[in-house]
């Protein structure tokens, strides 16, 4: 019970801190959203029309006045779920924009994360099972090397080779101009084709962490007394590896996975930017560069909440999977 209260307290406190951070960051260095918006239209080669600038400013309703009052209003708006109107997509609301981008990120990154986790865990377990064999060396060294490659660079090379040189896949975007989002076969095949390269880029680097984590955990659990005793008991190797190795070694990975899912948005900025994918990450980067405070703040908050929920879920899952925690909680 106390545990629950503490978790909830932490949840609220973190949320408050994130909201406050959100509120403060744009106000520390006030850039002008209206100017940013017009600059996006005109570039830096034409003079800004001061009258137009004033009109846009007025339209966006950029806030003035007492910082504390602003903060209060802001908190109130957040609490009632009013994230306001996006500056760069005026008059669409922030909620509408996030709604548009969310499915793309969820599908692309969600699916690749799942696959990465599954593949990584399996490979890691295999390497640990065949510890010190050639398989182990190949998996361990291979993943270590691939793990050092900068993600965005891999992505660029993929574009260079498969999209530009070989022209097998489109260079970017979520779908082509020819197909409209909807429940059509054409659209899905088109969207699939557009997701191949970003997915591959994510899948190259995605499993690395899971492989290494799983291998090291499992090597450790297989060295524990219970695994040795299982060997002395004459249990089949495979059974030891599964029940006495992998079953226990996977626990920290599961927690990590839940947290990784929560951090989805954070990880997608690069991939979405490079592949021009219409998801949350790119929306965030765009919001930042356009000084679209409402959108940026909502996205940031959204991510923080995502991470918090994921952490909470990780705790719950862990408790479910690990009897040691489960019973301790029940008492």
């Amino acid at each position, binding site marked *: 019970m106390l545990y629950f209260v503490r978790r909830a307290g932490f949840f609220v406190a973190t949320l408050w801190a994130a909201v406050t951070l959100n509120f403060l960051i744009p106000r520390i260095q006030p850039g002008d959203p209206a100017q940013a918006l017009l600059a996006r239209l005109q570039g830096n080669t034409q003079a800004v029309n001061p009258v137009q600038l004033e009109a846009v400013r007025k339209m966006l309703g950029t806030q003035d006045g007492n910082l504390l009052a602003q903060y209060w209003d802001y908190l109130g708006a957040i609490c009632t779920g009013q994230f306001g109107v996006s500056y760069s997509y005026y008059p669409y609301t922030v909620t509408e924009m996030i709604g548009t981008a969310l499915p793309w990120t969820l599908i692309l990154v969600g699916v690749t994360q799942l696959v990465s986790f599954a593949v990584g865990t399996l490979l890691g377990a295999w390497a640990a099972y065949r510890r010190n064999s050639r398989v182990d060396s190949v998996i361990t060294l291979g993943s270590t090397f691939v793990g050092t490659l900068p993600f965005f660079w891999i992505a660029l090379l993929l574009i260079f080779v498969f999209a530009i040189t070989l022209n097998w896949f489109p260079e970017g975007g979520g779908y082509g101009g020819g197909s409209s989002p909807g429940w059509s076969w054409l659209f899905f095949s088109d969207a699939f084709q557009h997701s191949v390269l970003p997915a591959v880029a994510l899948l190259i680097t995605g499993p690395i962490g899971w492989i290494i984590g799983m291998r090291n955990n499992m090597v450790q659990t297989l060295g524990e007394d219970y695994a040795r005793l299982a060997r002395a008991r004459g249990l089949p190797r495979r059974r030891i590896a599964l029940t006495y190795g992998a079953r226990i070694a996977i626990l920290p990975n599961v927690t990590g996975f839940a947290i990784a899912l929560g951090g989805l948005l954070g990880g997608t900025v690069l991939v979405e930017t490079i592949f021009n994918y219409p998801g949350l990450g790119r929306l965030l980067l*765009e919001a930042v560069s356009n000084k679209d405070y409402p959108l940026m703040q909502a996205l940031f908050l959204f991510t923080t909440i995502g991470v918090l929920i994921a952490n909470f879920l990780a705790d719950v899952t862990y408790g479910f999977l690990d009897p040691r925690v489960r019973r301790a909680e029940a008492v």
Partner: protein
Amino acid sequence: MTRRPRPRTVTAVVASVALLLAGCTGTEGAQKSSGSDSGMIDFLNYGDFGGGTTPKPNYNPYLDATKLSAADYIYESLMYVETYSCKALPWLATSYEWSDPKTLVYQIRPGVKWNDGKPFTAADVEFTFAMLKKFDVLDTQGVWASLASVEATGADRVTFTFKQPGASVFTQVSGVKIVPQHVWSKVADPTTFVNATAPVGTGPMKLKAFNPRQLVVERNPDYWQADKIKVNEIRFNKADAGGQVEQLKLSRGEYDTNGMFVQDIKKAYVDRDPEHHHYWYAPGGVISVYMNLTKAPFDDVAFRKALTTAFDDQQVIDKAQLGYVTEASQSGLVVPGQKDWLPAGIADEGRIGYDAAAADKALTDAGYTKDGQGRRLGKDGKPISFAFKVPGSYVDWVAAADILIKNLKALGFDVEKETPTPDAHNQDRATGNYDMMFGVHGGGCNMYANFADPLSSARTAPIGKKAASNEIRWQDPRTDELVRTLQVSPDEKAQKEAVAGLVDVMMNQVPMIPIWYGAKWFQYDTTKAEGWPNEQDPYADGANGLVVLTHLVPAGG
């Protein structure tokens, strides 16, 4: 029975593979087809249509910052002021007349229909302006700051009355997009109206399809000058992939026209198909060296004048600007487009060449001597040192600044480069927190705004406060007088005299030193369509899409 689904699955897989393969080359192949036999162009691929990375339908012509570019082909204005030579072309109005300096009467074009079949009338114009008055955020050109009233004085006449002589706002008033009363009068709040389904306008194109990757508009057969429109469809393509992918698409010929920055246009674009790939970068705003006129030695005319020959403009143009731009005239005008405004007797249209020796001499003569170590001394006898601020992320500006700093250092100045963010840079410029930096001004078709914005003392503010647009803090009664004249005199002669006076201020008092004209990026492909504007036929610049569209004809026709 249970086996039935199996072959279907196989077919589906085959189909998907086929689609996949088709997709690999499909887009390109399909779009290479040339104009059709009917003397019409099937479709043209244009570049980006605005709306950021996740565009949402928005065809409200007044939401300048977020509307999609289809709105530019759906809504029209009374006159169309093309931005190359600033001619006002009769558009929804056939003509206009100043009945007195405060009264302007437009003659409405007869027979124009909205694309839903309803006739366009003077009442629509009156309604449009009334709406802008009511919802002032839509009035992005600020016409109601000068207007007193707008009235339909007859079926085909609209009379505008101004609070004071209104010549200076003619271009703005003429440029306001007119919307149909029968649609917009029902809109509760036009400031948040996105006008997403079947926007009703008078323009040559109608909305056909939208998705976040592609925006398609189709020819409006009932357009009032439909005979001039030879393009059946324009497809705008979301082009936000950033530099290289877009360049690649451009070089592959996937765009019939675009307006993007290309690093090495000749190699990356023209050379790929020299016969059809062309570009024309018309001059835009004037990019000048701003000096903080409240500080010594920049407050000294002689000093500023001496600097006019100190900068190697040509090197800036060739190295920093990759040869895409032209040297700016010290007059503050954009030449050659606005050369008619130049008073007589200005050599080389006001361009002042690089002459370090002359600058050195002029500085020395003005009392800024060098000391033994070659340091340029101020009037106080101390070496002159100042900072040149340039936004770090504007790579071309930084390169330009590097050249100018080199020039200044050669003259014995101690110049330090600072590279703040664009925001901090703009903030510093607006509040006067700088010694020397680049600024953009002028280049528009409203000559009053071109000079008033950067020079009028009404548009400045003390150091530390944000200036509206006079960021150099130029305060000069004569300039203010000339600007005032320009604002109120309806006749061209008086205006020209005022401009001549302002050019004189620019040339002799040197409030700033223009270096180059910002380029308006414009690439075009003559495979399918011809008639694009260019240096030989500068009937408009590339950004004047509506005018360009009326000039396009099928290639080889």
